[in-house]
């Protein structure tokens, strides 16, 4: 029986029973952590202030798509301002901001609050934990890289007078868009978590991720344009540059005139290899970190 005032602070023996149901084991544990982390990336299940930053950044990522659809609807049915490969150029900055703001929360929170010992004493292993976190963050980023483009394709298709013609003209871009969107999301997740997971301190982690994206960018461009020679390899240190190179390669488009990719002069496929290498190294660093961190 519930006492009249339940908040008197006494312990009442009301509820405990033994559990005889199924125990679903490690795979279930990993999936539960994956979905929990994915929700928390957007602040779901948390206070409103945790939702503001991720949602504002997501809205910024959608703005170009919405703007184009608005123009297409109002002005003309033949406007095609943003190409699919071009869209990744637009969302680079929101993605970097999202990584800087959210990656430290994905891994740092459990270290700061010492929740890790509760996870690692449960039905999963340290490696499972690291990979579930990485997969969840990559999924969250995929929403930013792909959903605006999905919106764009649908909107453009609906806005045009000739829906079947639009589809036949553009179908080849669909798998390319998906491939590029996925690669970019996984790369940014692996890279930023590799950095952010090294410290429980949010401020350090954010600065580290920002540095990886934004400080490397002007330095790489200076090295490529002003020094050349060996300096050209700096293009592989700047995520914005090699991500864009990789995107161009996926869509089979050449580097633009006077772009850093053209100036560096590497085959565009090398950027694809660079992306894969970064993903592998980043994931390995995240797994290694959680194999060693004390819980």
């Amino acid at each position: 029986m519930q006492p009249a005032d339940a908040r008197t602070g006494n312990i009442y023996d009301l509820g405990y029973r033994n559990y005889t149901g199924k125990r679903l084991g490690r795979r279930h544990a990993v999936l539960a952590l994956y979905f929990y982390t994915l929700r928390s990336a957007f602040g779901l299940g948390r206070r409103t202030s945790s939702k503001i930053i991720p949602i504002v950044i997501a809205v910024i990522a959608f703005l170009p798509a919405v703007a184009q659809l608005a123009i297409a609807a109002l002005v003309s049915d033949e406007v095609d301002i943003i190409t699919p490969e071009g869209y990744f150029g637009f969302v680079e900055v929101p993605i970097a901001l999202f990584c800087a703001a959210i990656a430290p929360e994905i891994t740092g929170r459990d270290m700061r609050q010492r929740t890790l010992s509760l996870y690692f004493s449960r039905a999963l292993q340290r490696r499972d934990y690291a990979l579930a976190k990485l997969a969840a963050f990559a999924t969250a980023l995929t929403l930013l890289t792909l959903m605006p483009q999905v919106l764009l394709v649908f909107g453009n298709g609906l806005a045009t007078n000739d829906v079947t013609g639009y589809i036949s003209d553009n179908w080849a871009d669909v798998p390319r868009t998906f491939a590029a969107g996925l690669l970019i999301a996984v790369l940014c997740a692996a890279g930023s978590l590799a950095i952010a997971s090294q410290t429980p301190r949010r401020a350090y982690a954010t600065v580290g991720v920002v540095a990886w994206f934004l400080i490397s960018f002007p330095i790489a461009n200076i090295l490529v344009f002003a020094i050349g020679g060996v300096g050209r390899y700096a293009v592989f240190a700047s995520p914005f540059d090699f991500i864009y190179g990789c995107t161009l390669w996926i869509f089979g488009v050449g580097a633009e005139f006077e772009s850093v990719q053209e100036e560096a002069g590497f085959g565009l496929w090398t950027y694809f290899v660079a992306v894969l290498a970064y993903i592998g190294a980043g994931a390995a660093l995240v797994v290694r970190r959680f194999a060693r961190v004390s819980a």
Partner: protein
Amino acid sequence: MPVPILETRGLVKRYGSVTALGGLDLSLEPGVIGLVGANGAGKSTLIKILLGLIDATAGTAEVIGYDVVAQGPLLRQFVGYMPEHDCLPGDVSATEFVAHMAQINGLSRSAARERTAETLRHVGLFEERYREMRGYSTGMKQRVKLAQALVHDPRILFLDEPTNGLDPAGRDEMLDLVRRTGNEFGISIIMASHLLGEIERVCEHLVVIDAGHLMRSGPIREFTATTGTLAVEVDGDVSALHQRLREAGLEAAHEGRQVLVALDGEAAYDIIRDACDDLGVGLVRIELLRRNLEDIFRERAGEGVHAAS
């Protein structure tokens, strides 16, 4: 003989040149077990090895028949752990957090929700369970920590200093809860504490470790066996009684309002009774003293003996 819930063989843990555990052999039967030792004796190290949080340098350990390393995730579905330190995120509610932890232990979403509500009620958390945990008092946080360790109905529960930071009333409630959880629901409990009084109140079996070595393991009554000393409390002239008993040939000591008498055969009771009668003092109480754990450890510390039994 029942199957041991916990068995270690030659468990060693070294941190560089520091030895935290020096070859621990332990075999424990189900029950509520107290793990005692000074700070730094190796209690937490032992628990963390058993939970798979740290690796042993050498030796093996089995909990409820599973190897802690080779069968870790499988075993840990049946294990609950309440750490000594803070471990709760501030920005989620107790309900959300405990349900999540239940899922990590293999319960389905719906089972996790149901068990969370029951378990939080069991530990005495009601309406406040929907609030963010950052506003909780220490007592409430300790309850949530216990709830997350219990929510999946473990077969063995590791509690590391469960009364840490609690006021005396909260301490009593927590100990009561621990005892009931162990006795009424068939969950074996390993409770680490440096407070002997708490262990004495809750546990049936005691394991004493010191500097990484097993000092003693046995039922708690073995530690608190009778002492062979009678405490005699009278309503009247205590020193006269003391004098009289000494004259009668008993070894007696005057202590406050009572006289302590070495029990030397049944005759002592008669002598005490007669002496009181002669002096005309009222006999309030004759009690055969039991030692409590603190006395034992004080004696041991005095002797400086680390005798294993």
